[in-house]
């Protein structure tokens, strides 16, 4: 054994992905990140150079080139241009603190997110921090009717800016927020006007950091109250076959401890078979014979999980998994998870 300390891990640059339908207010937000005095230097990867009225050599144009990885995973699409751009950015001497990736209004966020879990170099030097979706409160209702992308962008989000709230009534706003919650119960929703928000609320959140997931939603295991209201709502909706293509979320709970091997077999089989329909999943698990909380998260089939620290003594240990997706078979998910009991 040597006396030299273990090599320090390379600093991983946090990456925030900014999505949102055309005209929702992404560019306004982007311009704020680039111009406001927040003491941090951002490299910004944009799709439409012209929209950003700022001459900054850390603004890089991207081509949004999606391709399928030949890794046996049929839904594992990644952004080749992002791999190339990030490879170039990390060579620069004048370093930056964080990266912001803007996607076009019509983009599916999955390939962007999957890039950060798939490529060795990207994984080594960067970490996906959060997916932030800007939603136009006035027009989102229509968008959700006619564009899958609008729904997907909400489904993938960790943070949602419900923007242009000054253009709708209180009642309309409540209705829209309820609709958003049906699709995505994880995301932190902020009401904004002209994308005006404290940037700390959207940057460096650690939404994919297994060690921070619990802190972001301390009530996760208490699913069913507060903003998780909607569950009752779509149980009714589940009876309507016309809504099968709609994205919704559902959660499954287990009071008994979970057998790690059974869970691993079940979840990997489930994501392999249903990974195209399951957009995101997250869970906190009470594994049998462990004092540590197990945290799990996945984007389509790309999943990760680890023990993240001891259970607080006052808490009742239990397990909960939340899925966001299409054609979710509630009974099968419930039975499958129940069968993972130790």
């Amino acid at each position, binding site marked *: *054994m*040597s*006396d*030299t300390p273990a*090599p*320090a891990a*390379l600093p991983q640059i946090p990456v925030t992905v900014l999505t949102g339908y055309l005209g929702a207010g992404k560019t306004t937000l982007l311009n704020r990140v680039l111009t406001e005095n927040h003491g941090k230097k951002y490299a910004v990867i944009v799709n439409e*150079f012209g929209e950003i009225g700022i001459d900054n*050599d850390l603004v*890089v*144009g991207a*081509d949004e*080139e999606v*391709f*399928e*990885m*030949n*890794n046996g995973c049929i839904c594992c699409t*990644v952004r*080749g*241009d992002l*791999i*190339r*751009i990030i490879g*170039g950015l*990390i*060579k*620069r*001497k004048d370093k930056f603190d964080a990266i912001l990736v803007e996607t076009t209004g019509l983009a599916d966020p999955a390939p962007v997110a999957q890039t950060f879990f798939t*490529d*060795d*170099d990207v994984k080594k030097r960067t970490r996906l921090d959060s997916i932030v979706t800007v939603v136009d409160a006035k027009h989102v209702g229509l968008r959700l009717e006619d564009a899958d992308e609008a729904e997907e962008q909400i489904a993938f989000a960790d943070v949602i800016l419900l923007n242009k709230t000054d253009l709708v009534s209180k009642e309309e706003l409540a209705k829209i927020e309820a609709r958003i919650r049906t699709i995505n119960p994880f995301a932190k929703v902020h009401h904004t006007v002209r994308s005006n928000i404290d940037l700390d609320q959207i940057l460096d959140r650690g939404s994919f950091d297994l060690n921070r997931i619990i802190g972001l939603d301390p009530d996760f295991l208490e699913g069913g109250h507060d903003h998780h209201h909607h569950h009752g709502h779509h149980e009714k909706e589940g009876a309507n076959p016309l809504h099968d293509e709609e994205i919704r979320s559902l959660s499954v709970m287990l009071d008994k401890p979970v057998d790690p091997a059974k869970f691993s077999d079940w979840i990997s089989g489930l994501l392999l078979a249903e990974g195209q329909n399951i957009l995101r999943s997250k869970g906190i698990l009470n594994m049998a014979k462990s004092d540590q909380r197990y945290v799990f998260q996945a984007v389509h089939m790309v999943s990760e999980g680890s023990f993240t620290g001891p259970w607080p003594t006052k808490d009742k240990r239990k397990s909960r998994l939340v899925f966001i997706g299409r054609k979710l078979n509630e009974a099968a998910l419930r039975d499958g998870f129940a069968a993972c009991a130790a």
Partner: protein
Amino acid sequence: MAEKGETAGKRRAKVVTRKYDAYVVAAHVNGRLFGVGFGDGNVRLVDSENIDADPTTVEAHNGAVLSLAPDINPGFFLSGGDDGKVMRVGPPAVSEVIAEEKGRWIDHVTTHADSGTRVYSVGKDATILNKKGVRKLKHPTGVGGLAINPKGKRLAVSHYNGVSLWWLGAEGNATVLEWKGSHLDLAWSPDGDYVISIMQENSLHGWRLSDNEHMRMTGYGAKVRSMAFTRRGHFLATGGADAIICWPFTGGGPMGRAPLEFGYAGGAPVTAVASNPRHDVLAAGFEDGTVLIGQPGPATPALIVMGNPSAQNCAVTAMVWNTDGDRLLAGCEDGTLHVADFRL
């Protein structure tokens, strides 16, 4: 503490090590000079005849060097930067703009001295600069790599789902070698019959042009990152494993044959390989900064020539031999630059 892989052999070279504050992006040789491109935008020129002399620093780019090649005249280099410039760089500290694409990145450059050809790529376009003038070639997706064949007649351009082969001397459409996936760096075999691409997945794909035979070279545990044919083309040496992987290209190519492995150095993956131009010797650089040399074959021990086991983030990112094959330059992610002289 024992140096990693010390059992493999003793140092038998004079090594000069320098440390810069920027990522070593690429290294090439032209005449007696080594040219090294850095993430601080500089190209540093190292005199292979006098490795103790301080390298000449040429400020080539306002940003990072992204690509480098030996230029078409001896002693000069062609560099591409994220400032959108293609620069010609040479001693004592000359830098001259060859082309400029405002607001874009020059992702790749390559050259062929005998035919006086320079090629660079920006996004989906590759541009040929030669005696016939300027010609822009369009591709369906972003260019992953460029390589001109040894005779200087054809240009291979990699992109998604294949490689386009263009004739440098004639107009006309490309011949597309198709294979699904994202293709990155390219190499031609010395006889010009094989085109090989490093893929985004941990694998290589090759095409034999004489009969359009495909070659899949898989089984890697890491990204391949680097490849080089041995001087007569008997082997294709690659990174991507904890030893040098050598695919046999004698007797019909590597199809259905297992590669030769040699040069294990403690478990870190190989991140750069360089083929000696005069001898059947390969150099390999590892993710932990180790550099070793050896002959392809199971019996010969590899010789550790450089390394810094206490350094961090010191993956070898670029490596090149001088034209006489008795000096070796290796550069690392953390800015370390070694030059070894084997004339002892």
